[in-house]
């Protein structure tokens, strides 16, 4: 920059400007990290770090879910039941249902009942291996603790993190 005195009346402040350039460089890096986090699934709606599983995949109950979900958006919780005899009777914990709204259960349950701490669903299937998909809309924010289980069998716990 020249040392010639300026005739220009201007509110230039190069020290402030340098701070702004630094902010922009940091901002671009932050944007890059944000997009990377979104690609990895940390902002919900899929991605390798968002896929969660609970229970043994060869056991009677195995759950697939999204670790990171978005408030106001829907996600799927897939329940795999193995070796069920007769009707599949499973339950979802009531505290979890206070923070989510179940839009649909596929296949449609033949019976639903409500107990104090859980909601019970009964599905009559022709096969001992049944896959049930819960389409849930998340209404709460923060950590959502969930528990699902078979009425006469094991249960699994998992947690989801709901972001704004």
């Amino acid at each position: 920059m020249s040392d010639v005195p300026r005739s220009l009346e201007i509110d230039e402040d190069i020290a402030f400007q340098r701070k702004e350039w630094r902010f922009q460089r940091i901002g671009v890096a932050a944007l890059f990290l944000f997009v990377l986090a979104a690609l990895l699934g940390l902002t919900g709606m899929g991605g390798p770090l968002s896929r969660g599983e609970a229970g043994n995949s060869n056991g009677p109950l195995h759950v697939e879910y999204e670790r990171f979900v978005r408030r106001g958006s829907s996600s799927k919780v897939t329940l795999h039941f193995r070796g069920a005899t007769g009707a599949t009777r499973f339950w979802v914990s009531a505290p979890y249902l206070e923070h989510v709204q179940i839009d649909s259960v596929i296949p449609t349950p033949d019976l639903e009942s409500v107990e104090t701490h859980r909601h019970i669903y009964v599905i009559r299937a022709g096969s001992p291996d049944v896959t049930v998909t819960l389409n849930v809309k998340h209404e709460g924010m923060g950590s959502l603790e969930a528990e699902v289980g078979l009425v006469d069998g094991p249960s699994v716990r998992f947690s989801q993190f709901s972001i704004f």
Partner: protein
Amino acid sequence: MDTVLRSAAVYIFLLVIFRISGKRSLSQITTFDFILLLIISEATQQALVGNDFSMVNTCVVVASLVMLDITFSWMENRWTTFGRVVGSLPVVVVEYGHLLEDRAKREGVTLPEILTAGRETHGLERLDQFKYAILERHGGISVVPHEKN
């Protein structure tokens, strides 16, 4: 309440994004920039309105955004530093016929763009005819030619 918070969040997010992208990002809108703006507005609209397409919700969104804009303008006038943070400052990029390369590079301004501004506004042919070229807050380039002797 949710709508007002959504509007504020989107307003501030867009403000930060456009401050990060710099003064020059959308100052000269190409066809692609125009399409990008349309896509951004469409994506933003979903977040602002959510699932509520009622007239009241639209009114709340518009009122919140305009109110935020008025408040920010008032704050910019009231506190100089806030105005600088939100709206940036002009930067001299050419001084007495010399390109201040470091500044131009950091602001993403090229010599051809500066020369174009000189030709368009004052019919200047060469860089040595420039007294000053200033990258303004809004991203445009103003040119002050050397006085004719």
